[in-house]
């Protein structure tokens, strides 16, 4: 045996094997694409309707991903349920994400009321910190290491966007460019992982009594 048997590692490997299908990357990429597309929609439809348009879009993406997972991924990788420790970890993840979102909303509301003439750089920096904190915490709690990289890319996006807007005259604080590129990388990564899974994990041959 060339490797030490570590139960912790085995659990992590089982968890990664069950979720390493690229579909979450695609979903997160679609969510991030909102930052790239929303400014254009906002100009045409207003803030409220531009946000409302995204709800059915997210719902459609979510349903497609769920269907892919059920009909394409699970028959290839199998079904597994995790123990109490992993469930507690997921619960912690939900609480922390809720706290980060509430914190971000509160910070945004406070900044909007208190500092109406805040500089673009300060807003970009705040946005970057929120994105980095949220993604890093999610990466840590889920053991989803690629999220650290995504968090870094997300954090850089508003800052580079601001720079492109100030120096190169890009529209909408450069969001369509920077967040568009970030979302594109995430969706592309997800697609590569998904296609690789399909290629390397063909449908197993099972006897007729086991489907």
């Amino acid at each position, binding site marked *: 045996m060339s490797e030490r048997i570590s139960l912790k590692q*085995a659990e992590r490997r089982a968890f990664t094997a069950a979720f390493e299908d690229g579909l979450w990357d695609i979903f997160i990429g679609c969510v991030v694409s909102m930052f790239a597309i929303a400014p254009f929609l906002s100009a045409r439809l207003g803030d409220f309707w531009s946000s409302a348009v995204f709800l059915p879009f997210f719902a459609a993406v979510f349903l497609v991903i769920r269907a892919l997972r059920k009909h394409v991924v699970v028959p290839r990788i199998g079904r597994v349920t*995790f123990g109490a420790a992993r469930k507690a970890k997921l619960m912690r993840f939900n609480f922390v994400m809720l706290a980060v979102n509430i914190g971000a909303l509160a910070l945004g509301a406070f900044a909007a009321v208190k500092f109406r003439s805040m500089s673009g750089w300060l807003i970009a920096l705040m946005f970057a910190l929120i994105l980095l904190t949220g993604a890093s915490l999610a990466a840590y709690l889920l053991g989803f290491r690629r999220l650290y990289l995504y968090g870094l890319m997300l954090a850089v996006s508003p800052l580079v966007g601001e720079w492109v807007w100030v120096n190169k005259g890009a529209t909408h604080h450069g969001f369509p460019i920077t967040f568009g590129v970030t979302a594109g990388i995430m969706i592309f990564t997800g697609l590569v992982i998904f296609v690789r899974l399909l290629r390397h994990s063909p449908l197993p041959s099972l006897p007729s009594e086991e489907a």
Partner: protein
Amino acid sequence: MAEPPQDPRLHPLADIDRLIHASPRLMVLTYLYVVESADYVFLMRMTGMTWGNLSTHLSKLEEAGYIAMEKEFRGKKPHTIIHLTKEGRAAFREYKKSMQRVLDDLPD
């Protein structure tokens, strides 16, 4: 049952549960120990075994009462969910302790 080893330092090896000690079954039990339940496909993927091979090892573990297999239906298709029993969990824990004892006692 084989004769106990002559080297007294290796005596704990005689107590090792041989049903668990076989590497394919050890792999299966390791994964079942760290998850709540899994199906055939998942275990085949994680252990690299074929259905037939896995089925043979699972039958042995089921006979010993270490695992339980539950048939359920997904739509009209039968589907087997496998999980470790209380006895299986205790046996695996005991196996782990015995192995640690044996390995810790071995000279460098």
